[in-house]
């Protein structure tokens, strides 16, 4: 591994042959390399290094832009009207402007993950040292950082080694961001290539953050049987002081757990979390509890249960301080990225801070030292809990009925609601004393609070819904498997062949946020459907929590019903957002460990392998964030398709294949160099589905790959056609595009498929050794 910025100074040296005075040598990078794998063609790729690969994908999956509005307002020339072919004052057109916005979103995401990783690595180096080894799975993980190896061409062995990867990410993000300045890039396809680059960088940031914390903080290490931990409001003991941590960076939460443990308080105080910090604090300590996904922030704070609220970074409601004040809970902010206007008390004495917080002299403080956070938070929670008596900001039924009677019937609540919920009608019904209609909104509400902001008479409408759904809230008691981290090398060896040959019908990654169109039950249904069909289902982030939030008749959640191993029929929670790196990592490891493809700085070849052979699909059903966009972009560059829910259409750009354009679906046969038609496999790279049913059918369809064996393709066709018949009520109308040979046809469907093939004048084709890269052709010489 390399070390940067080595300096050697010699003040004076006299030998028999020479005399040296004031010699100063500076090395930009010193390589002390032990990795014997040959360096691949693209170490530390610049913005344009992989441009040709991007253009190959973008030629097939052309951007389809769906602007949010007609104007650009990014500089003082504007606003500029870009409607229908007009150009702005700088010369930009709508396609370039939309791709520029997509790039900006992905850069926000990539910089957020990278900055998170930088903070994590610096903190852990300070605590454990540069040379702390990166062990994320003992002998089960030899390829510990597949993304970093693939992109950078380096193999990090210690925490200190990770800094080089982060240096690279920060450099690339800066360059990419500069390209969005007015008067820089002007071509939409080149913007899109930069989007892919930002996504690839994002994945390094994810990987660095997660492997650093797994290694140093003792998280489960690639453990398929990681502990089942508590999830839900109902699991939290309201008799104890409750500390709520919100965000994504677990460092402050570890300080709290450490202090409580060291002082014998851990059993006396509840530590719980919302969003990805919740995942990671349970990975740190399985006794900690998960409240729920990001959309539970308002309802949980207003319930009055938390006695102290600790905010770190990302996806934290920016009005948390105001909400906390409503329930008289002190707030401790812990990240330079999210100071909330609070005074920096990092260097003050703990006693003084605790006194100020418990006596209400300040509503919150900023503390940037995680150990001090631990002590302040724990002591404050213990002290304020008896006085607070779980003071809540949820109205009682009488207040709701009285408030509902003041409703002006303007319907602005519904028109502000992203879900178009019929709030006004529910309030009207509540005015008669019946809260059933309000209660029916509880499961679908995404907890944004926009209805309240729109209300002319300032009714706390979200709180009305929470109160009406209180019984459900209190009954939320679930088990989720704690985030396991990476996929073991041996698991990859076991499933590599059946995945690549198509006999495991696909890998479905259910990831992302909780901006679901119709509540979380749809996520549960999708996970269960595909696990039952023996797909490998991987979960992460808020979606992993949502997947746990329903029980079967025996009272078991999906994580209690299905194994946590990376195998057919498994439901595998890898962990928080940054653990998404292990999903990309698993795809990369299939190419490396199973197929023996060189990994080191060999991006194009590995992405080509994954795109043509690994039937993996991402589903971000409730994606809302810029980070989700960046994670998606990293998968796009690897050639892995991503589906989003209908809200995902607001990302403003899809990457859609055209199955009706036969010329788009040719690959090279690596054996002969022939160009062979392989059908639209996979048909799309980024795609918004309108309904759960549409998404489910498309998941099965997008798992098909050119390399599928006939047996594998028959299995995949069976699932796709079966789902189509059940959910659409008809046969697909494009089966002919996915049947290559007679042997592809599922035996049980032969008659009906033959009929379609005859109508479509289908002709048998051959199955190539598929690649999009001419350099991968092993063309035999004539006569050889």
């Amino acid at each position: 591994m390399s070390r940067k910025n080595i300096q050697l100074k010699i003040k004076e040296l006299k030998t028999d042959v020479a005399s040296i005075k004031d010699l100063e040598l500076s090395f930009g990078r010193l390589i002390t390399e032990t990795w014997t794998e040959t360096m691949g063609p693209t170490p530390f790729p610049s913005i344009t290094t992989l441009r040709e690969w991007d253009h190959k994908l973008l030629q097939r999956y052309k951007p389809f832009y769906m602007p949010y509005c007609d104007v650009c307002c990014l500089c003082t020339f504007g606003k500029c009207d870009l409607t229908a072919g007009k150009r702005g004052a700088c010369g930009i057109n709508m396609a370039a402007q939309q791709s520029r916005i997509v790039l900006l979103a992905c850069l926000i995401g990539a910089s957020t993950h990278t900055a998170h990783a930088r903070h994590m690595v610096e903190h852990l180096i300070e605590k454990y040292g540069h040379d702390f080894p990166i062990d994320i799975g003992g002998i089960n993980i030899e390829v510990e950082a597949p993304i970093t190896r693939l992109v950078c061409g380096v193999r990090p062995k210690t925490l200190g080694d990770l800094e080089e990867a982060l240096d690279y990410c920060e450099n690339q993000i800066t360059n990419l961001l500069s390209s969005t300045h007015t008067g820089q890039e002007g071509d939409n396809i080149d913007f899109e290539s930069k989007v892919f680059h930002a996504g690839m960088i994002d994945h390094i940031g994810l990987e660095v953050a997660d492997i650093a914390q797994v290694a140093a903080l003792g998280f489960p290490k690639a453990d398929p049987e990681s502990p089942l931990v508590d999830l839900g409001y109902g699991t939290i003991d309201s008799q104890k002081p409750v500390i709520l941590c919100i965000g994504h960076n677990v460092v402050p939460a570890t300080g709290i757990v450490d202090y409580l443990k060291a002082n014998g308080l851990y059993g006396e105080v509840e530590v719980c979390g919302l969003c990805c910090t919740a995942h990671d604090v349970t990975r740190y300590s399985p006794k900690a509890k998960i409240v729920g996904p990001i959309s539970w922030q308002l309802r949980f704070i207003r319930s009055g249960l938390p006695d102290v609220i600790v905010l770190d970074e990302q996806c934290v409601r920016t009005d948390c301080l105001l909400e906390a004040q409503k329930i008289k809970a002190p707030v401790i902010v812990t990240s330079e990225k999210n100071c909330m206007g609070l005074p920096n008390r990092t260097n003050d004495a703990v006693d003084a801070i605790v006194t100020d917080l418990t006596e209400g002299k300040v509503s919150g403080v900023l503390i940037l030292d995680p150990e001090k956070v631990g002590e302040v938070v724990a002591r404050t929670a213990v002290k304020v809990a008896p006085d607070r008596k779980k003071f809540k900001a949820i109205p009682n039924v009488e207040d709701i009925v009285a408030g509902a009677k003041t409703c002006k019937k303007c319907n602005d609540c519904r028109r502000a609601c992203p879900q178009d919920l019929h709030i006004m009608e529910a309030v009207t019904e509540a005015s008669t004393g019946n809260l059933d209609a309000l209660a029916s909104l509880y499961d679908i509400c995404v907890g944004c609070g926009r209805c309240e902001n729109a209300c002319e008479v300032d009714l706390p409408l979200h709180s009305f819904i929470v109160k009406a759904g209180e019984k459900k809230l209190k009954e939320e008691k679930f088990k989720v498997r704690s985030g396991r981290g990476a996929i073991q090398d041996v698991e990859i060896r076991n499933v590599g062949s059946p995945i690549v040959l198509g006999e495991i019908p696909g890998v479905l990654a259910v990831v992302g946020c909780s901006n679901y169109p119709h509540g979380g039950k749809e996520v549960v249904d999708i996970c269960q459907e595909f696990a039952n069909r023996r797909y490998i289902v991987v979960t992460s982030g808020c979606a992993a929590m949502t997947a746990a939030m329903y029980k079967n008749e025996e009272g078991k959640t999906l994580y209690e019903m299905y194994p946590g191993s990376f195998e057919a029929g498994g439901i595998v929670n890898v962990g928080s957002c940054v653990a998404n790196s292990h999903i990309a990592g698993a795809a990369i490891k299939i190419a490396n460990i199973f197929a023996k493809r060189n990994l080191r700085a060999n991006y194009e070849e590995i992405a080509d392998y994954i795109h043509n052979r690994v039937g993996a699909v991402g589903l971000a059903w409730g994606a809302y964030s810029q980070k989700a966009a960046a994670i998606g972009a990293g998968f796009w560059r690897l050639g892995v398709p991503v589906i989003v829910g209908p809200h995902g259409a607001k990302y403003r750009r899809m990457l859609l294949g055209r199955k009706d354009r036969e010329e788009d679906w040719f690959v090279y046969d690596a054996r002969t160099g022939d160009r062979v038609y392989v059908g639209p496999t996979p048909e799309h790279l980024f795609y918004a589905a309108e309904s759960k049913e549409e998404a489910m059918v498309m998941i099965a369809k997008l798992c098909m790959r050119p390399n599928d064996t006939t047996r594998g393709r028959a299995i995949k066709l069976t699932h796709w056609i079966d789902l189509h018949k059940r959910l659409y009520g008809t046969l697909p109308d494009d089966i002919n595009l996915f049947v290559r040979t007679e042997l592809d046809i599922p035996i049980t469907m032969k008659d009906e498929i033959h009929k379609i093939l005859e109508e479509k004048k289908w002709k048998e084709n051959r199955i190539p050794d598929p690649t999009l890269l001419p350099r991968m052709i092993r063309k035999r010489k004539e006569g050889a």
Partner: protein
Amino acid sequence: MATAEPWQKAEIPGPTKALVITKPEVVVAMVKKAKRPILIVGHEAAETEMGNKKLIDYAIRISQVGKIPMVTTAHVVGEFVKKGFQPAAFMPAVDIANRLVDSEWKGLDGNGQYDLAMFMGITYYMEWVLFSALKHFGQNLKTISLDRYYHPHASWSFPNLSAEDWAQNLEVIIGKLGGE
């Protein structure tokens, strides 16, 4: 000129907003003037109640009396088949919109691109961005929203209507499309 507000109030489109359909006869005239109209119907058509009918029933009648080919989106095709109606095609909403912005596309029947696309039954916020895509990139394409709420990115849209007024407007369109 009549004006209207987007149903979701924050959805402000920009300088170019849909003309408001103040009389359903406007739609009839647009369809009759069009050389190649198409009707796109989303999954909410099967869920949206309109008195004793559903939106799907209106969609079928508009397609039949206007002889307008219908593309259904999402998973709703089976509901049409159950009612004895076979749409011209079914495909994801983003797919049909993507084809409508391609000047080279030959249409469902191979006879060329469409010049008028009418939409109904797709979730408001998704239809919003689909109309936007067509506004900006659909060459020589006019769009009409037949949904209940104002869609400013369309070329023409109803204002926000009561359920009764909406049904009445659709009845007029069906009645007059079938006439001379």
